[in-house]
């Protein structure tokens, strides 16, 4: 074969491959409706997914290497002991609607983010101290943002800040990410189409993303999600249930992936909001450290791992997963399942047993409800197991499954719940991304959010430690401070951590370019390089 023929053959193959990879519509499921499409107000998984797929960020954390990579900024420099960051922006980029991208957009985004009136959960992570930020632009492509106090891991925080246009009439709908919102039917689907102005190209100069569109079907029921995957209606599943993983593995081992312990956690907490519409005596139980510790000791986490997750999980000790090697505090004592300890703690706190029923000092039977989201079989099963565990110490727990919007409404607005069982999705390795959870003023400080001043001394201590670690750039010192936070959380148990699920996922054989990892969004973290091969090509 001559060189010329070989070249022609290679060119033909490349063209054929390009055609196979070319168009495609990726389908996968969201487990709830997105609460918002505003990138700075993202507070839930579904909205987070939309932001990841549509938002353009200055820097992006590579989910595999866990290193930052340039995106809209070609370079960045941190100065003034992590108080200030200077970005050099890419030139000639456009938002999805054609509006040019520039330093004004970054400035506008940062001002919006830090605006207290917006109540941005992401903004909380940047607030290491009270005060205003200063923004200085140099020329057309350099911008310096200075914070009132040092912010730890400052550059990494920008992984979650999707830049908005200062001038577009579409406002937050004008995006810089690979996809743009095309249609949203509440309860049904979110359709994203390819952003024709997306700036990235592949090594051969082809404009990314490869996919034409992404369809996010709103599907709470995991069984149905799995059925749809099997039928080929959806191509990826994130956060696959252990049982489904085992089932799929027996049928199609090449389509399932176990990336080890995930960064996410499943936890239960009691409502400690003083104004919550629950009886005062119950609020008193929930605010008692011994009561929470007793509940925690009465829960058999090993059984939960074995029966609910088929062994694809590990008992949780605290907010940080053992997969997070740097931040996980190895000195934390694992929870031991011991109903004797639980009862001793309760008796010490004035509770007593009466004919198999636990009663408080005033004689009230200890009963409370646990709310969780309907359709999540693992959580429903966990709740049922906790119910039986608590029954063994005379506590009656009732389970209430609610659709997600109703649950969020109760958790964040009406506070009309007693205990809640939910999971926390961690997008970031750094504890700074959890500022909105740990600061007592945070909107996501779930057990008692948005406090004007810390309700308890230990919450005040957590506030101080979190602010201190966020204002320090020295990793060892930060680690020491956050270890102390983990110890306080372990001791006080505002969240009763249950398990860290393994990062299980499924990717159909037709998908190319997926590289499942433990960090969210597991399977589609490099969505712009993912493609679908045609059915003909797979045969």
């Amino acid at each position: 074969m001559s060189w010329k023929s070989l070249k022609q053959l290679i060119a033909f193959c490349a063209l054929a491959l390009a055609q196979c990879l070319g168009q495609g519509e990726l389908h996968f499921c969201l487990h709830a409706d997105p609460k918002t499409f505003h990138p700075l107000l993202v507070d839930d998984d579904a909205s987070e997914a939309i932001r990841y797929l549509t938002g353009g960020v200055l820097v992006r954390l590579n989910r595999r290497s866990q290193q930052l990579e340039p995106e809209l900024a070609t370079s960045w420099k941190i100065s003034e002991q992590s108080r200030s960051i200077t970005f050099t922006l890419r030139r000639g980029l456009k938002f999805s609607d054609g509006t040019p991208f520039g330093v004004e957009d970054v400035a506008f985004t940062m001002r919006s983010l830090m605006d207290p009136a917006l109540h941005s959960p992401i903004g909380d992570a940047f607030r290491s101290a009270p005060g205003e930020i200063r923004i200085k632009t140099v020329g057309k492509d350099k911008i310096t943002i200075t914070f009132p106090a040092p912010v730890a891991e400052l550059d990494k925080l920008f992984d979650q800040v999707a830049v908005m246009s200062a001038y577009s009439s579409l406002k937050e709908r004008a995006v810089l990410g690979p996809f743009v919102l095309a249609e949203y039917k509440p309860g049904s689907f979110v359709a994203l189409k390819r952003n024709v102005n997306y700036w990235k190209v592949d090594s051969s100069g082809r404009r990314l993303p490869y996919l034409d569109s992404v369809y996010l079907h709103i599907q709470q029921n995991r069984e149905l999600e799995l059925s749809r995957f099997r039928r080929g209606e959806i191509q990826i599943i994130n956060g696959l249930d252990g049982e489904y993983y085992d089932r799929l593995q027996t049928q199609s081992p090449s389509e399932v992936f176990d990336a080890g312990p995930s960064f996410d956690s499943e936890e239960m907490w009691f409502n400690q909001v003083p104004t919550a519409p629950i009886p005062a005596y119950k609020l008193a139980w929930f605010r008692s450290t011994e009561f929470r510790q007793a509940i925690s000791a009465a829960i058999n986490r090993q059984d939960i791992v074995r029966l609910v997750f088929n062994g694809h999980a590990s008992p949780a000790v605290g907010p940080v997963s053992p997969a997070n090697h740097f931040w996980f505090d190895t000195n934390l004592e694992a929870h031991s399942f011991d109903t004797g300890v639980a009862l001793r703690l309760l008796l010490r706190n004035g509770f007593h047993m009466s004919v198999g029923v636990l009663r408080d000092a005033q004689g009230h039977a200890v009963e409370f409800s646990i709310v969780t989201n309907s359709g999540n079989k693992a959580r429903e099963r966990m709740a049922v197991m906790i119910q039986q565990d608590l029954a063994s110490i005379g506590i009656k727990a009732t389970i209430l499954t609610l659709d997600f919007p109703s649950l969020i409404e109760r958790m964040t607005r009406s506070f009309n719940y007693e205990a809640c069982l939910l999971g926390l999705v961690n997008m970031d390795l750094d504890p700074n991304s959890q500022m909105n959870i740990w600061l007592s003023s945070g909107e996501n400080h779930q057990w008692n959010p948005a406090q004007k001043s810390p309700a308890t001394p230990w919450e005040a201590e957590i506030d101080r430690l979190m602010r201190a670690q966020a204002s320090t750039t020295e990793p060892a010192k930060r680690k020491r401070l956050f270890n102390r936070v983990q110890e306080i959380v372990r001791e006080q148990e505002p969240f009763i951590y249950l398990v860290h699920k393994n990062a299980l996922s499924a990717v159909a054989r037709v998908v190319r370019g997926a590289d499942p990892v433990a960090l969210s969004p597991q399977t589609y973290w490099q969505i712009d390089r993912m493609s679908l091969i045609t059915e003909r090509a797979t045969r």
Partner: protein
Amino acid sequence: MKYVRVVVITVVAAIFCAALAASTLAPANYATQFRENPNSPPSHRFLLGTDELGRDRFSRVLFGSRVSLLLAPAAAAISTLLAALVGTVMGYLGGTWEKMMMAAVDLFLSLPWLFLLITIRALLPLDLSPIMSVIVTFTLLGLLGWAASARVICAGVRALRHSGFMINARALGCHPRRLIAVQLLPNMRPILAAQFLTSIPVFILAEANLGMLGLGVSEPLPSLGGLMRELENISAIAVQPWRLAPLIVLVACVSAFQILVSGREVNS
């Protein structure tokens, strides 16, 4: 046909009796988790095996049948009563009143009742026990499920309104209330009974649908709908066909009610 009816009645009676005697017949409490025996196959100890949490499936089917088979007829009674009230008034008044009321019924039928149920369920008090939650669920089903029956009853009343005995009674000066109570309703009994019997399987299935969505009866109380959530795991059914037990009970009950209704229609 008579032989079939006898068999059907026997089957329904047997299921009802078993459900009523669940506390005695069940070898274990429906909520007890035998955690060392999850997903066990049928054995002397667990006649229909165990579920994922090690709960005895046979006991759960018995208790689940009790919940569904006792409360579905109650819901059917509520809906038939409401349907009889609205349908009779509509059919008796006729003319513009009937048209207006029929439009209201059509509007009611077009309501997304599933979302309404989900919303109402979300508003339920926290301390509601599983038993109360299931009663509320079936009561809601009964309150929301009358509209279709009301149309049928209205048509029946309309047909009877101009019948000879009604004209005679009206000519003798019978008061409308007495006319409805003494003349109309007794003649509507076959239709009302058929509507009642038809509604029972509808409500069992409606609860099953809610159960499949995770919005049915609260755990750990079982219901046929809730138990059928195990069937979502289709591949597991091939390996563990005993998971089909609640479905078989449901199909047997629904079929039995349908046969009873059709037999009654033939007789009437």
